[in-house]
């Protein structure tokens, strides 16, 4: 920097150079492998190289809706995905509320204990979650044993094979598992709130609820909206493991979300190209959703997220 006055353009170029190495990493690890989407248009079976695989165009995309039975299946799968993702969206504010009220607790030890202990379920793998669920809810499980002792039932209730309220149960499991963990982000955000705002509010004689409503909540909303937008973009990605461990012939109709459907398709050694076709479609839909919601947010709130 030989001259003291830097031109605006020059500064912006320097800033770009600062982030360039990171963008290169991203290009290598995230963008480069995307050439693999081309597999979706071929009938690719390793070890036969792509150059010798037949080109099939949009066959795999079309094959998802070939017959009426498949269309029906897919519609049910989409319904389930919407059902469960919808529930998640509807209650996406839970971690924020969790953090807000946790922050209101004055007993420091209690607060810290809650904060730590509620993250525990996040670390239990779904496989193990299911074996605990089995210990509690199977026909010989704890809950049925208790109900029987109380004389409430004669024959055991088969909770795990129940086909009603599957979406709700699945939502409850995932909330139990991730609530404390997701709240961490909001707990961190709360600390960035200017302390003087609180002081001012209390000086004005605000009640606790009023302070939460007028100070804490508005400060957390930016974080909330960002996460909400990302969640919407992730609408189709419910993940697999949870639904996989909980599925059985009886609840399958309602538990089969898109990810599980794709996995179940691939179990019989389903073709690689089909799975690429589906993940490509999901990626594109996610990005499209991201920008649509972003646009929506611009209209509603005057600012976008990305």
């Amino acid at each position, binding site marked *: 920097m030989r001259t003291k006055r830097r031109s605006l353009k020059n500064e912006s170029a320097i800033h770009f*150079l600062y982030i360039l190495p990171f963008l290169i990493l991203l290009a290598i690890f995230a963008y480069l492998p995307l050439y693999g989407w081309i597999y979706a248009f071929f009938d690719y079976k390793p070890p036969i190289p792509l150059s010798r695989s037949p080109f099939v165009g949009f066959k795999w995309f079309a094959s998802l809706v070939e017959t009426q039975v498949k269309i029906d299946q897919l519609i049910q799968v989409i319904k389930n995905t919407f059902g469960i993702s919808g529930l998640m969206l509807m209650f996406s504010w839970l971690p924020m509320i969790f953090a807000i009220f946790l922050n209101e607790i004055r007993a420091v030890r209690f607060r810290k204990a809650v904060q730590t202990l509620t993250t525990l379920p996040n670390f239990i793998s779904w496989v193990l979650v299911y074996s605990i669920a*089995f210990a509690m809810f199977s026909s010989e499980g704890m809950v049925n044993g208790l109900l029987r002792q109380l004389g409430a039932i004669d024959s055991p209730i088969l909770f795990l*094979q129940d086909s009603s309220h599957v979406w709700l149960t699945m939502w409850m499991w995932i909330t139990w598992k991730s609530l404390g963990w997701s709240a961490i982000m909001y707990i961190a955000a709360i600390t960035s709130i200017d302390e003087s705002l609180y002081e001012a509010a209390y000086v004005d004689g605000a009640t606790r609820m009023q302070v939460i409503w007028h100070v804490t909540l508005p400060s957390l909303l930016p974080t909330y909206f960002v996460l909400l937008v990302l969640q919407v973009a992730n609408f189709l990605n419910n993940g697999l493991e949870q639904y996989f461990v909980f599925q059985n012939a009886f609840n399958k109709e309602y538990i089969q979300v898109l990810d599980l459907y794709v996995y179940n398709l691939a179990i019989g050694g389903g073709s690689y190209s089909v799975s690429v076709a589906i993940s490509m479609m999901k990626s594109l839909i996610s990005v499209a959703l991201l920008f649509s919601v972003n646009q929506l947010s611009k209209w509603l709130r005057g600012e976008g997220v990305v």
Partner: protein
Amino acid sequence: MIKDRLFSRKAWIICLTILMVAAVVLAGCKSSSGGGGGGSGSSGSSGSNDYSEHLTITVFSNAANYQGEQTGWYGKLLKDKFNITLNILAPQVAGSQLYNTRVAGGDLGDILVIDNSQLEELIPAGMVLDLTDMIQNTKHLSQYVEKHFKPFNSSFTEVNPEGRIYAMPTFIAPTSPTTFSEELPYSSPILPWDYYQGIGAPKITDLDHLLEVLKTMRDQYPKAPNGLPTIPITLWKDWDGGSMENVRWISNWYGYEHPEGTTTIQLSASGDIMPLIDDRSNYKKVLQFLFKANQMGLVDPDSAAQDWNKVAEKLTNKQVLLLWYTWQRGFYNTIARGMNGDGYAAVPIADVHILQTSDAYYGNGRVFAIGSKAKNPQRIMDFLDWYVSPEGLRYTINGFEGFNYERTEDGKFRLTEIGQTAFQDNTPVPDEYGGGGYQDGQYKINSLIIGDFGTDPETGEFYNSNYWSHTLAANDTKLRQEWQQMFGTTNATEYYIKNNMIDIVPNINTSLGSDSSDIKNKRSQISDYVKDASWKMVFAKDQAEFDQLWSKMQTDVKGLGWDDVFAVDSERAQKIIRLRAEALANQ
């Protein structure tokens, strides 16, 4: 698109430096990873055993359930003998994607233990070594070429028209193509012997009668020894493949098998191909049996929600009354219990006609091959030759003489006290042998070329210690004696053969071809549907629902492409039938 003047010199320098550092780091790592095994210098001409350089052999094994280096006593043995270390890659651990990615990358490994269908893909891709010439120069492997390796390799007519030898099948039993050496068919009715005696040991006539027997047994013995309730029949879902696995194996009792590699058919010994969804199929018959059992309250209500691990616990607790796989007995049966007449035993049903495949004369569906990029094929061959030699087999299957087994005066082998339980107890191995637990140090390739039904030339007995005369004598329990007294034969297989209640079909071993992507997708959708429908049928409310589910399945799977998949499977069945006929003719 970026113009030079936008950048100050300093910025350029920073940027370039970062890029260069990144490049150096990446390049440095590449070179360090490249020189893994070494030993490519010694070309190892045949027979010259230059083992001075240590060699790491990468073993890609579908059979292995452990990934990592072979350690423990077996690791030391190989190190001492061949100066090699086996580094095992296990798709069962790392996931089936391991095969796809490594194959796409062009190097699967040095020793490959893969499925027949994978071999069929790899031969035309040039990824397995042609062993024809190398195998001629071996001492032990060469003995098996004519009778076992050649017929197997030649059956891959499309990819191997010249009949070269690319691979050696696994678990070969060099008995004969029509012999069945085990004491019990793979799947047959098995009940707790003492309970069966306790209810008066009625002669069971058919499946309906079996249900009544189970009911009586449950009513008389409602609690297992540990106080938990008795469950006459328990099912599990996590092994389901093309259809409901539990149904599949009970179907065998009535003469139809479900050939591996097909999902829509059942095949009889006489070559009758039955569509799974046919109204007359055994598959439906068994579903009906389980449905009826459930109506009578004999099926574990947790069946649809539990996995195999849970079932294993129930078996260990003697909670389950009806078993079918031979090896399921092992969870509860012990010699000590057998002495008291306690334990599970085969109880024939009068109207069964079991279908059983013979010993794996041509191997059992997987192969040993050598990858075309293997660094030192000759040394690998030397190891594999030892692997099928009597010495190698004794070590691999039975451990150390003097530790696991001992020679008796009559020239046979007898398990030592340690040897009887070394596997279960993971007994510590003496340091001179390499230390560590016995089980931990066992061979982790988990697959053999010549299996444990090979005959040890020195003793004239199988390598499998369960069939040594000394072991059989030690196992002569009250349970066994009672059984023999009641049925008048030494073991169940003999009983079924004597009473003409079993068809032993010749073992065949080939690839049935892999599915086109189109069939693959149809197959998995159909399988998925069939499994769900089957489970729902077993737990249907009443006969009407059962029938309705069945007929809905019959129509729906057609919409998923049943006819195409069935055509493929029928063709495969024809190949099986043809090869079985050939095996019989060759005998």
